Structures are given as structure tokens and as C-alpha cells.
């Protein structure tokens, strides 16, 4: 019979090496996934809502669609609305009750400061802190979706996220090994989901249908 001591040793080795690889190679890269140096350093309207002692990431993606087309998907973000276009099969393991929209919902195209945006059914929610029609959506806490027109048919979607306050041992223990990697998975999924929908590529449609 396999010795338990050996199994525990293996678990410790796997965990330690995963942590080491993650901290040195993966994390520095995913905190700025797809973003240029200029995008990382550029001030965004949501920056003033970012509290102190938070960890900030800036990610970006090129979408081959006009800015207005991308905005229609961004403005309907939220649980109970258009969803977050990420991996809903993953979100629903955490009682999110998420259903990603695959079409523009006209009733959700008007968003105002103070409107609630939920992350989970009966769960935590935030509110719209700032909105600039067709350009930028900022949620309370500083989460910013910023659209930059490259040309008539190409848009850069820049997403800046500020974590909750990471200022105690427990919050660090939860944030770095659990929340932050999980948030990267979901946020890049969201950005890919927005891209697929805005570009409306028939060959990619099945991918987000399957989500």
C-alpha cells in the first residue's frame, strides 16, 4: 500500500513548485496579459476609485469590431443581465446562476451611475461608479472597462481591476494563491468572450455557446 508519508511529501513538493513557478514566471505575465507598457501606465477614469492597499492588474485585447459594437456587449455586463461572457460552467459551480447572453439585449443598453451590477445570485454586488457612453464603464472599487478606437473596425479593450484590500495575513493568504489566479482565469475568459461576441465569428460561436 502506498505510504501516506510519501503522498504528503508529493503534495508538498507539487504545491511548493507550483507556487514558485507561479510567483516568478506566471504572475508577472498575467497581471498585464495582452497590455502594452503604454496601456499599463496610462491613467484611466476609474483610477480615482481605486482604494489604497489593493493589487491592480491591467489587461488588454484587440477586437476586430467598431468601438460601438464592443460597447453594446460591455454595457450589459452583470449577473442577471448579459452575464460576464466568461466560463459560466465554472461560475455556476459557485452558485452564481450565470447565463451569458449571445445577443444584444436592448433593455440593458442604458446603464447609469448607481445601477447595481451583481456577480452572483443573492450574492455580492457593486454599483456603477462612472460611465461614459461608448467609452468607459467603471464599477465601484475601480474595475474599469475602457475602449480605445484603433481604427473604424478595430478596438482595444483595456480592463483595469483593483482587488479588495490586501492588508492582513489572512487576506494575503486568500488573495494571492486563490482569488488572484481565479480572477485572471475569469477575466481573460470575459475578454475573450466579449471579443468573440463583438466579432461574431461563426466559427467561434460554438465555443461560447458551449460555455
Amino acid at each position: 500500500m502506498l505510504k501516506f508519508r510519501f503522498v504528503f511529501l508529493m503534495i508538498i513538493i507539487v504545491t511548493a513548485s507550483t507556487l514558485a513557478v507561479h510567483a516568478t514566471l506566471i504572475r508577472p505575465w498575467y497581471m498585464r496579459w495582452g497590455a502594452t507598457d503604454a496601456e499599463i501606465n496610462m491613467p484611466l477614469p476609474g483610477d480615482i476609485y481605486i482604494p489604497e492597499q489593493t493589487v491592480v492588474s491591467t489587461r488588454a485585447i484587440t477586437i476586430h469590431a467598431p468601438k460601438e459594437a464592443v460597447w453594446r456587449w460591455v454595457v450589459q455586463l452583470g449577473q442577471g443581465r448579459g452575464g460576464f461572457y466568461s466560463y459560466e460552467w465554472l461560475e455556476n459551480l459557485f452558485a452564481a446562476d450565470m447565463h451569458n447572453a449571445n445577443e444584444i439585449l436592448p433593455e440593458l443598453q442604458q446603464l447609469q451611475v448607481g445601477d447595481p451590477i451583481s456577480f452572483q445570485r443573492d450574492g455580492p454586488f457593486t454599483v456603477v461608479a462612472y460611465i461614459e457612453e461608448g467609452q468607459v464603464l467603471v464599477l465601484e472599487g475601480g474595475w474599469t472597462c475602457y475602449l480605445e478606437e484603433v481604427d473604424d473596425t478595430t478596438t482595444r479593450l483595456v480592463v483595469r481591476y483593483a482587488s479588495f484590500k490586501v492588508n492582513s495575513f489572512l487576506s494575503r493568504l486568500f488573495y494571492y494563491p486563490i482569488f488572484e489566479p481565479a480572477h485572471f482565469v475569469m477575466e481573460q475568459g470575459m475578454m475573450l468572450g466579449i471579443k468573440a461576441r463583438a466579432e461574431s465569428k461563426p466559427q467561434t460561436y460554438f465555443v461560447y455557446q458551449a460555455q
Partner: protein
Amino acid sequence: MTQPKATRAPTFSRTLKFGAGAGIGLTFIYASMFALYAVCRSSLTIGALTPPDISLFGTLAANAASINLASLATASLLALPMALLGMGTAVAIKWFISIFNPNRNSQRAMLIGLAVALGVVLAFQFSMQMLLGRPLNDLGVETYLFWFGLPGVLHMGAGAVGAWYLNHTIANVSVVTREVNHGRPEIYSGAG
């Protein structure tokens, strides 16, 4: 003549250790299975949608590492309560086997293990329902299956296998004890 294999009796402390090991091991196995599934499924989306200006290899690697890290870290947090649950189940199984399976029948032992593990699973789910203050089926089918349904099935499977192992060990110890004592008649006569 073949020498009987030395078998260590499943004492109370060894049973606790066995239950704790099984609980922790299964928690990490379940987390790893989930991570494998999540990595494969999300990689399909990433492979189909990642634009050429972002490294596909980097995105796949970062996605896989992130899912693995979050799963392992969550499993580490859950390991302690799962170890306690495993200890409780192992002790209960051993106790029930000693009472209801005097002939050390393997199938009967597995049935006892399954029943005890089912009882533990139901008690755990009832406690969680009390703690959350709402029925678990309110959480949604996927959430229930992921956090309670599949781990419950795994726990019952482990209960059956663990019961077989404990029963087997107890039976072996009995054989060894009989064979060793056979050469020492004073044990029976009470002499010496």
C-alpha cells in the same frame, strides 16, 4: 512453512491516522481532477479565441497554472476539515465492523463501510444546511453536485474500500496472533 506476514493491528491511533490520510488524499485527488477538467475545457476556448498578438502558449500555461494553484490552495484549506471527517468515518467504520462483522467477511465489511460513510455524508450535508440557513438544493444543481454530491459519492466509495482494508488488517492480525500464540501453550494455560 510460510511465515505469516507481520501485520500491525489497526489500533485507535492508527485508525485515526488512516482516516486522516484518506480524507486529505481524497481532497487533493478531487481538486486535481477538477483542475484537469477545468484546464482542458477552458483551454478549448482559449485555443479558439486568443488573438495572435497575445502568446497562445503563455495564455494556456498561465491559465493552467492559475487553475492548478487556486485548486491546490483551496484543497489545502479544506484538508483539515476533511481529515477530521475521514478520522470520524474510519473510527466509526472500525467500531461497526468489530460489532457487526465477527466473521471478517469482506463483502459485509464493505457494506458496513458504505452505510457508515452514507450516514456521515448525510449528517455533514444536514450540518451544512443548518450552517448556511437554507436548503442545499437552493444552491443550484451544479453547485450542489460539485461541493456535496460528487464528494459524497467519493466519500462513500472510500468508506467501502477503507472498510475492506480495515477488515482485512484486523483479520490478518487475528491470524498472526493465533499462529504466534499457537507455539506458546502457556498463553492458553495461563502459566508463566
